[in-house]
């Protein structure tokens, strides 16, 4: 039985990793300029100053890396939140972590703090996400019903969005207002390796914190009392996971803007494959999130002619109906 589970897990991981790899390679070929397989290959192995090498190495590569990292962060954070809150509707966007991060980042933009240090943006994103998640715990409590949790999330999101709107409203430059508005829609267009270097370490730290709680999350699914009796310190676990979520999501959102619903869709699709065990859902959701966001970012580039369609708009268009579908399922008691 155990061996069979391991084998299944191994197959699942291999499959997802292959999917991510395949999408990653595909992404290197998608863009406004058509490049042949040879040109992309040559650019990757022997980078020079030719236009095709610049396009591949400095535009498509950082963009795809960021899609992979941001997607992984959102997928993993969704699975972690769902395990921690024991609620299948928890997701960084729905509970307000993304709006919190977006607010933090908008304030930095608004007050011009980003000009002081390039680190100001990701740090403000993390602080915003942390405050939002902490508020959720205060508002909803830990044994909140799915409804109470979602309502608390809606309240936090609305408040954060209202403050963001205030920042846009009062922005001294029309261009800064436009910038915040577009940035909020979520996009990975024309990001550079600087962005990768800025966000990747923080996302990595967040992942380690979240993944380290995998076993405890599985035990937690048996009930808080059982978990305590098995030696899981709930408070430590909660602090560790919330910090992990805030650091990773804050860093991700500060680079890409808000990309919603990834953390909802991915764990839901993958849950049946891991025997509904929250701990085992984490790793696969990381890979699944990666695959979903790279795919969505490919779709954005294929669909855009003229004014680009924003990545966050695409994921929300897919995600919002999915959320409704989950709500209906929840009402029928089939989740």
């Amino acid at each position, binding site marked *: 039985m155990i061996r069979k589970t391991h084998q299944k897990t191994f197959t699942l991981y291999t499959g997802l990793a292959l999917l991510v790899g395949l999408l990653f390679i595909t992404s290197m070929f998608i*863009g*406004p*300029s058509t490049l042949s397989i040879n040109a992309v290959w040559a650019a990757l192995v022997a980078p020079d100053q030719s*236009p095709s090498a*610049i*396009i591949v190495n*400095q*535009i*498509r590569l950082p963009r795809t890396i960021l899609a992979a990292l941001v997607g992984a962060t959102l997928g993993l954070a969704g699975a972690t939140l769902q395990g921690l809150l024991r609620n299948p509707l928890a997701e960084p966007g729905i509970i307000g972590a993304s709006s919190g991060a977006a607010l933090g980042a908008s304030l930095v*933009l*608004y*007050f*011009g703090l*980003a*000009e002081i240090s*390039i680190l100001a*943006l990701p740090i403000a994103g993390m602080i915003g996400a942390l405050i939002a998640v902490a508020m959720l715990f205060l508002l909803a409590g830990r044994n909140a019903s799915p409804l109470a949790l979602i309502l608390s999330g809606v309240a936090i999101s609305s408040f954060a969005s209202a403050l963001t709107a205030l920042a846009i409203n009062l*922005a*001294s*430059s029309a*261009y*800064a207002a436009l*910038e915040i508005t*577009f*940035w909020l829609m979520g996009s990975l*267009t*024309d*990001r*550079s*390796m*600087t*962005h990768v270097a800025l966000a990747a370490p923080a996302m990595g730290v967040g992942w380690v914190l979240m993944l380290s709680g995998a076993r405890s999350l599985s035990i937690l699914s048996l009930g808080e009392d059982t978990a305590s009796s098995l030696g899981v310190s709930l408070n430590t676990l909660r602090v560790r996971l919330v910090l992990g979520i805030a650091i990773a999501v804050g860093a991700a959102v500060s680079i890409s803007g808000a990309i919603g619903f990834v953390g909802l869709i991915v764990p839901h699709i993958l849950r049946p494959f891991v025997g509904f065990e929250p701990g085992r859902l984490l790793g696969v959701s990381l890979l699944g999130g990666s695959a979903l966001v790279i795919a969505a970012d490919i779709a954005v580039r294929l669909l*855009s002619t*003229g*004014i*680009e369609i924003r990545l966050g708009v695409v994921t929300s268009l897919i995600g919002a109906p999915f959320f409704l579908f989950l709500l209906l399922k929840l009402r029928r008691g089939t989740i």
Partner: protein
Amino acid sequence: MENRGGLAAFVLAIMFFQTIVEKLAIAEEMPQRIVSIHLCADQFTLALANRAQIASLSYLATDESRSYMANAAKGIQLNNGTAEEVVALRPDLVLAGFMSARATIESLQALGYRVLELALSTNFDDIRAQIQLLADILGNPKKGKTLIAKMDQQLETAVTDIYGSRPLAAIYQPMGFTSGRGSLESSILISAGFENLAVRLKMGALGHLPLETLISARPSLLVNWMGDDPHPSLSRAGYAHPVLAKGPWQIAFIPNKLWTCGAWYSALAVKQLAAIRRSLKK
């Protein structure tokens, strides 16, 4: 004798009547309390009306980063463009413009105020027509003719000694926004002797230029007209892509205030770009 007296009285009466008609006509032609609620209308009002005619200008009129006539606007009462403020100023002419709040304009019209809405000028023919229209309405047609002549003179001298093919250039704003056919930016770029990349790519007034497209098209010049905006924004914070700084192009920062309205001073933007065009030696 009696007849002659009657004639004289008649002539006098006619002369008197004529003066009244003329006075009325002037009152009709020359607004005495102009209120502008639009940055572009501010510029034209300052250039074409007598200072005594101006009751109030928009709050942006004295902003040196956006208003070309900021200096001249000093000392004039400013408004935030709400109907309440405008009514309190007792205007005989309200100047609004593209992107002014619809509700404000409609409520002022409903209250019986004379509201003139400026259209967005996207080329120099539009600009000439708009200057003359406003000069006539403000009661100073001569000032209009002088201003147009000055602009045409500047446009002409800007492009003397420029021969040969048009180098490719692109308007490139932070986040990759660009301007194609039907935009003032494009008209300025083309008047300065360049070919506009966005027009070549068949883009409309607002388009998006991904960096990839820029790198494959290799324009000789990128024009940024937001560069001197002193207000905080992402692009000023070092988030711009490093590739931008290393491309085969020159990046020109043309002051923001020369682009916000289609006006006589748009010729100065042409002049600055034409100077760059000359240095490219193509």
